[in-house]
């Protein structure tokens, strides 16, 4: 149901029924409207409120608000901050292009692109014979495939793997890539994403990783240099080859392109990749270019809006789904389900369970142990099940586990 009106108006909010809403999300372009809407909704009786707030000036204000002194906004989402966190995670784990921890950090999900020379290229899934992780999905030409035993793995496929923390990295080598050690990370663009990214990566600098920032604007350069003593700030146009070469951008082990302009980000990202930077992550404001980034060979793309949406979804799926990774514009999801006593799926061997065709049970976490399920494995109450599902199979999967 859609209601047309000013979201900061109490009358409009009442018409939308905020007084008995369990969740109110305010994500307009204006921070102030979002915060006001949340405060009004909270007063009217909404259970939980989420506001998109981008201006860091409000950070401390909202910290006050969230400790209960001034009730109003329960959770704030900052798309740039969220995107920076995603990029930082991708950079810190150099072998995957999408990456998340699940089950409180015990389980990893990550993805690799299968290169032509990889030992797993042109093999069938059943030949992989990995006992420690589950291959949950293959992304081929923009389509999500759920792997079966006879599915062939082709070069250029992006494979998604779920397993115990640390184990999927071994698989990463099998997928055709040596683990690279980070020595130099270059960040292209001193935007607000760039700022948050440096903040997130600064601990690496203490361990000897060189952080380089390329930014055209002198004032921004100065402000960044003031804020981060360990950051090497380079003033120059990052889309100029001369600047990139003089400052040895091609010598970086990873690069994040987070400038204000999508087009120049794509160009710079492409240049860096061509110059031989092993990992290039590009931030894009709009999703419309995403389908065309494939041939550019970028290692990952991050869209702040999508990052924020994933973060909000994590909060929405509150009760049974503890954490969630959203893959590529909601084509697929990874659910973490706490199996309850009354669940239909309990005590039945998996091969008889009738898991929907678009879903795969990745791993089970039972009493702190990570179990890679086989056909005869049974789900027990109290298990955390990490379930991969494509969008079309989500409803059916949810019914299986009695999800809302």
């Amino acid at each position: 149901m859609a209601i047309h009106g000013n979201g900061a108006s109490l009358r409009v909010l009442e018409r939308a029924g905020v007084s008995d809403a369990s969740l109110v999300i305010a994500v307009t372009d204006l921070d102030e409207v979002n915060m006001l809407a949340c405060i009004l909704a909270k007063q009217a009786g909404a259970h939980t409120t989420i506001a998109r707030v981008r201006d860091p000036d409000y950070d401390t204000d909202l910290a006050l608000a969230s400790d209960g002194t001034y009730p109003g906004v329960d959770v704030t989402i900052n798309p740039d901050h969220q995107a920076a966190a995603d990029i930082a995670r991708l950079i810190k784990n150099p072998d995957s292009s999408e990456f998340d921890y699940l089950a409180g950090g015990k389980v990893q999900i990550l993805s690799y692109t299968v290169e032509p020379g990889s030992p797993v290229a042109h093999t069938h899934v059943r030949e992989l014979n990995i006992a420690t992780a589950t291959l949950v999905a293959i992304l081929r030409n923009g389509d999500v495939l759920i792997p079966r035993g006879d599915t062939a793995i082709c070069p250029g496929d992006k494979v998604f793997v779920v397993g115990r923390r640390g184990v999927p990295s071994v698989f990463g080598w099998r997928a055709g890539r040596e683990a690279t050690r980070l020595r130099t990370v270059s960040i292209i663009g001193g935007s607000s994403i760039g700022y948050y990214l440096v903040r997130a990566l600064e601990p690496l600098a203490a361990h000897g990783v060189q952080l380089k920032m390329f930014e055209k604007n002198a004032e921004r350069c100065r402000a960044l240099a003031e804020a981060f003593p360990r950051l090497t700030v380079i003033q120059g146009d990052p889309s100029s080859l001369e600047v990139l070469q003089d400052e040895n951008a091609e010598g970086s082990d990873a690069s994040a392109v987070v400038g204000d302009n999508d087009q120049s980000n794509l160009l710079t990202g492409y240049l860096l990749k061509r110059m031989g930077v092993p990992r290039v992550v590009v931030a894009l404001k709009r999703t419309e270019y995403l389908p065309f980034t494939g041939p550019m060979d970028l290692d990952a793309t991050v869209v702040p809006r999508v990052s924020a949406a994933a973060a909000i979804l994590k909060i929405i799926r509150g009760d049974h789904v503890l954490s969630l990774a959203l893959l590529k514009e909601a084509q697929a999801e990874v659910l973490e389900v706490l199996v309850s006593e009354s669940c239909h799926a309990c005590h039945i061997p998996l091969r008889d369970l009738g898991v929907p065709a678009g879903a795969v049970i990745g791993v089970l976490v039972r009493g702190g142990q990570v179990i890679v399920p086989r056909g005869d494995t049974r789900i027990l109450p109290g298990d955390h099940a990490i379930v991969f599902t494509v969008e079309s199979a989500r409803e059916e999967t949810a019914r299986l586990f009695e999800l809302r």
Partner: protein
Amino acid sequence: MAVFGALMLAPAAVSLLFGESDWTAFLISSIVTAAVGVAGAFLAEPGTDGRIGNRESMAITTLGWTACAFFGALPFLLTGSLRGTADAVFETMSGLTTTGATVLLDVEAQSHAILFWRSFLHWLGGMGIVVLSIALLPGLQVGGSQLFRAEVPGPLPDRLEPRIRETAQRLWGIYIILTVGQTVLLRLFGMSLFDAVAHTFGTVATGGFSTANKSLEAWNSPAIHLTVTAFMFLAGMNFTLHYRALRGDFEPIWKDDELRTYAGIVLAAIALVSMDLLAHSRYSLGNTLRHSSFQVVSVITTTGFTTVDYDVWPPLSRAVLLLLMFVGGSAGSTGGAIKVVRMNVLAKHSVRELKRAVYPRRVTVIRLNGKAVPEEVSSAVLAFVILYLSVFLLSMLALSAMGLDFMSAVGAVAATLGNIGPGFGLVGPTCNYSAVPTIGKWLLSFCMLVGRLEVYTVLSLLVPGFWRKP
């Protein structure tokens, strides 16, 4: 001015106390000065809105200081201890600017009142400069003096006047604590009360007027020398750090960049001079350490007391002392010269420019105590040092033209511009400035004023546009 006149009654009291006859001279000077001050206050042009901006502050500071030097010279002239305005003004200026350069041939022949007046001028000048450098100059932003602010503790009202008053009270409290502490210690170690007070005034103000011809060499007591060395070092520290120490807030003191540099320079200089002296002179190890530390601290804090004639020291030691004359004390202390914090910024700036030659696109920030130093400040510091050295070179040229030998000219200008006192050669520790020609004395008086008021304050008055309405 009226206050300054009233303060002249203090030496008059000292005079009476010692049963000397020159109290009348001080009484007359006092009445004249006070009268001029009161008259000035009445005659002050009515109708101006009384707004005190940057330019007014600079003019008041410079002219006030100069006026005090002229009126403060009256007692010297009236008692007949000095003949000639140039000599009397030089001596007063030397006192007020806490320089300690003297034209008196025989200090010991002077009355107690005159000796007290000289030391008292130091003490007043020191009081003035601490407040000036911490409370007033940072607001005027001259020569990067924003660096001096060093987070004056406590609430800071936005308006200039209450801020100065508030800060002044705190700083003077510290000043008085130091004064009382040192006087008590010196008295304990065997100085007469009069000598103890006079030398304390000379120390906490980093002045350098002594009551003896041979300065502190006259008291051959390691305890006294050590006490004076310690208090000179304290007086050369930023007074806001003392304030923090009194409040038990030691953390920022250990971490203060300027204090670390200051202590580092002092220790390195002592080590260098000690080694040089051990190799080339006949002092025992104990005496070497005592004299080298005393002399190094005396010169870097721009005090100018001596325990020994350093002019006969080997070349390396003298060269070290000459360099220290340019470094000077910390910002916000009673010390003069360029100041350690400016040296800090200068060094960091130079290193950065070197790096910039290699990586022209790199943007780096100069940090002091972890905080970024704005570009305007570091370039103001650079300009300050250039102006300081220009004044030094031009004055040296002028003195040479008057017939002074090279070392004497260098020493005289470095020692007056840096508010130290004794220089080298003709104006070395065992000699004094009486041999400098009259015009040279005026020039050196001007140097003292320029050095004391952070160069900009005085020189900006000479800028053609200064007196015009903007």
